[in-house]
């Protein structure tokens, strides 16, 4: 009984991870400029990869795998925001300006 419930929870987490990965890809393609795409790439990618690691921790249930999954999640949660911030800082300093949404609304009307 407990094993069945754990399997259903793991399946739910794994499907959620897939959906987050798909949303990250859609955001990457559809959002208008670099600094908005960064939201989709860093947040969606982090949650997508992190939830698969949660899923393998539930499925395996061994202490060594659970430890490695926690290590992977902590590592991802530390490095993904840092790399996104470094890239945004480099892009701003290199002269890539964020898109001004007010200008778009004015040109549309």
């Amino acid at each position, binding site marked *: 009984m407990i*094993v*069945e419930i*754990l*399997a*259903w929870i*793991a*399946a*739910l987490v*794994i*499907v959620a*991870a*897939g*959906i987050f*990965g*798909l*949303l*990250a*890809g*859609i955001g*990457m*393609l559809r959002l208008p400029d*670099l600094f908005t*795409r*960064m939201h*989709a*790439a*860093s947040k969606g*990618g*982090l949650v*997508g*990869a992190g*939830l*698969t*690691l949660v*899923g*393998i921790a539930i*499925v*395996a249930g*061994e202490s060594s*795998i659970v430890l*490695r*999954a926690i*290590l*992977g999640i902590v*590592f*991802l949660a530390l*490095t*993904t925001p*840092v*790399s*996104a911030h*470094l*890239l945004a*800082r*480099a*892009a701003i*300093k*290199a*002269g*890539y300006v964020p898109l001004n949404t007010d200008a778009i609304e004015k040109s549309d009307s």
Partner: protein
Amino acid sequence: MSGSEIIVWACWVALGCISLGLLLAIIRLILGPTLPDRILALDLITTLGIGFIVLVAILTGYYLYVDIAIALGLVGFLSTVALARYVLKRAEARR
């Protein structure tokens, strides 16, 4: 439906979704108007690659793949940092 069967189903659904996400990121990598856009697409590809490898580990039962996924995360982080530094240096050299 038994427990292991539902996990296999969930893994295939998630693999399909992540593959589609990877495809969209590759389209952005090809289209991407500027260099930082392409670097961001590469970063997303490595992050989704981690998820892909972990799903393959669940499907095949070779849990050793988790170590490979963590190593891929390390390499992806270092490559993004190096490419961001390159964007900065290139802009400074152009000035």
